[in-house]
């Protein structure tokens, strides 16, 4: 079928259109499930390939979208792994200190902050899981915000709660 005829609106074309849409929806739902379950990029590629006999433009775009999405997920996982590794080293090296100065003047802490504001959700999750409240300085630097009142600054559970509430309000956790 030629390119022009492809867009002729007869009954069969509508049927193709709906069939195509069903396929797109089907693939989309698979992709969504895969995304939610954190499946690997390879797995998503397989899900797409099983439908590629139908070479419709939308499928091609969807595949492209899926790959971009997969790469983003992979990047995010890499970032999270990198954050977890640095955070573990930081806690292990500075957990013994009782002064904020000795906790934050640390190479691992600097490296974490240098990763940029994409790591804010990871920090907030760590706080939520009872991580040390000395993430306060990093969060303040990365977000340019401070939800902790001056009177709560000496109470670490209140610092933790203030940031968790802030994160929830911003839909970051």
């Amino acid at each position, binding site marked *: 079928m030629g390119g022009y005829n492809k867009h002729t609106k007869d009954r069969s074309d509508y049927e193709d259109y709906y069939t195509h849409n069903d396929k797109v929806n089907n693939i989309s739902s698979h992709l969504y499930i895969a995304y939610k379950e954190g499946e690997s990029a390879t797995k998503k590629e397989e899900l797409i390939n099983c439908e590629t006999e139908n070479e419709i433009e939308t499928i091609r775009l969807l595949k492209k979208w899926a790959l971009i999405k997969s790469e983003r997920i992979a990047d995010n996982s890499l970032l999270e792994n990198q954050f977890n590794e640095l955070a573990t080293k930081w806690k292990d090296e500075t*957990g013994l200190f*009782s*002064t904020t100065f000795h906790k934050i003047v640390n190479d691992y802490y600097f490296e974490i902050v240098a990763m940029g504001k994409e790591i804010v959700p990871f920090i907030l999750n760590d706080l939520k899981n009872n991580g040390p409240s000395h993430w306060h300085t990093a969060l303040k630097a990365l977000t340019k915000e401070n939800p902790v009142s001056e009177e709560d600054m*000496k109470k670490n559970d209140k610092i933790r709660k203030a940031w968790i509430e802030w994160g929830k309000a911003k839909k970051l956790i």
Partner: protein
Amino acid sequence: MGQSKKIDLIDFSRNMDEFPPGYVFDLHKGRIERHFPNLKIGENSSHKSKKGDDYNCAAWAIELKEGWIEFKDEHGNLDLRLETYISYYENLGFSQTDTIQLEEGVIKIAIYTDAKKEFTHVARQLSNGIWTSKIGDWEDIEHTTLEAVGGKSYGNPAVIMRKQLNPC
């Protein structure tokens, strides 16, 4: 002090009723010792609490289990000067002394400083002569000597302070 019984990891085949209330499992074997080469958990020291950052050593020195006590200077920077901590405890009734000797009715604290003479830690003497320290975000522990938590991390005790307790 008798040598305390120690388990490195929870053995799930064992009945939890075997362990006394408040038993602290050593889930992080070696973590504290790694920073304090003179400290041997179960020999010259023991764990006494769960880890947590609700309070720090400066609070624990005055028996508080809430609050992260630290200071800022006139420019808003963290103040680690030894004099600042001495002054804080003096305002609470402590005075400097030369001896760590146990005295009845007296509470003693030891303030540690690093090579730059900046505050790192404070330990408190218990009524049995043993010292107690809150290790940062981690557990509070008891140790038989001040040297047990001395070394590259906390430096050494720089000042000993005493406070007469009011008779009940």
